[in-house]
């Protein structure tokens, strides 16, 4: 589902966020080829309130053209109730700040990178590290073992995949 999006507007400064159990991964893209800022805002205590507050700070600081986030409410999404609620909250925050809010289903994001969409997060992260080797190569999380949880840095890579997917989808139209 894509919300409040005007494809004829030349979006350039994009804040893409990815939500995880560790906090909120984010990337600020100044055009599709430049990462202007990226990182993970760790959250403790009331994770949703603190995560939303961190995103609000980023929106206020950078005033992006659009905020991009994975569609946690999509039919095929398996995100937890907490993450769905935080995603809604962040979309509302963007709306309040007059920033276009765009949510893209995970399946769409994967299709943008791999036509069949049937790849793992590790493969997506590796594709992102390939595109930005200088910026992100040294941050690529080790490949997840079956018994291991997700690496905390994966949220940063997920944010970048969402941002790149946004640029690719909007350029197709």
């Amino acid at each position: 589902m894509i919300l409040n999006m005007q494809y004829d507007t030349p979006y350039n400064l994009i804040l893409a966020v990815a939500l995880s159990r560790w906090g909120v991964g984010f990337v600020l893209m100044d055009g599709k080829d430049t990462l202007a800022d990226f990182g993970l805002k760790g959250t403790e205590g009331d994770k949703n309130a603190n995560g939303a507050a961190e995103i609000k700070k980023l929106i206020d600081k950078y005033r992006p053209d659009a905020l991009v986030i994975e569609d946690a409410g999509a039919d095929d999404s398996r995100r937890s109730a907490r993450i769905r609620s935080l995603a809604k909250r962040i979309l509302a925050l963007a709306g309040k700040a007059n920033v276009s809010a765009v949510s893209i289903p995970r399946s769409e994001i994967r299709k943008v990178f791999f036509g069949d969409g049937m790849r793992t997060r590790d493969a997506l992260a590796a594709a992102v590290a390939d595109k930005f080797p200088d910026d992100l190569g040294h941050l690529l999380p080790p490949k997840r073992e079956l018994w291991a949880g997700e690496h905390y840095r994966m949220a940063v890579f997920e944010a970048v995949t969402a941002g790149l997917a946004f640029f690719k989808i909007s350029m197709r139209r």
Partner: protein
Amino acid sequence: MPSPQLPHHLKANRKRLALFQDDVAFLLGNQEGTQVSRYESFGRVPPLETALAYEVIMKRSTSELFSGMYREAEKKVAKRARALLQQIDNATGPQAARRRSALADLAELSN
């Protein structure tokens, strides 16, 4: 291709090198991490000497690091060059032709 919107990309370049603000402050000389923070958050524009030190530290050209500011400067220069082109007389000779050519090149910059 749209122009960069941010004045510079100092923060992302620092993160690329995994440097702390205090590291950059030390490398810039006589500066504190808070000053680097001000530069990164667009609160202050680094002076030329600092910008050149950034170029050395980040191993990126100043125009690349400060791409948004560079684009703005380019647009303004192009606009002035177009204005100057309209003002200059139609003098002939190699010097005048060279001057006109230089201005015409500048006028085309932001197109």
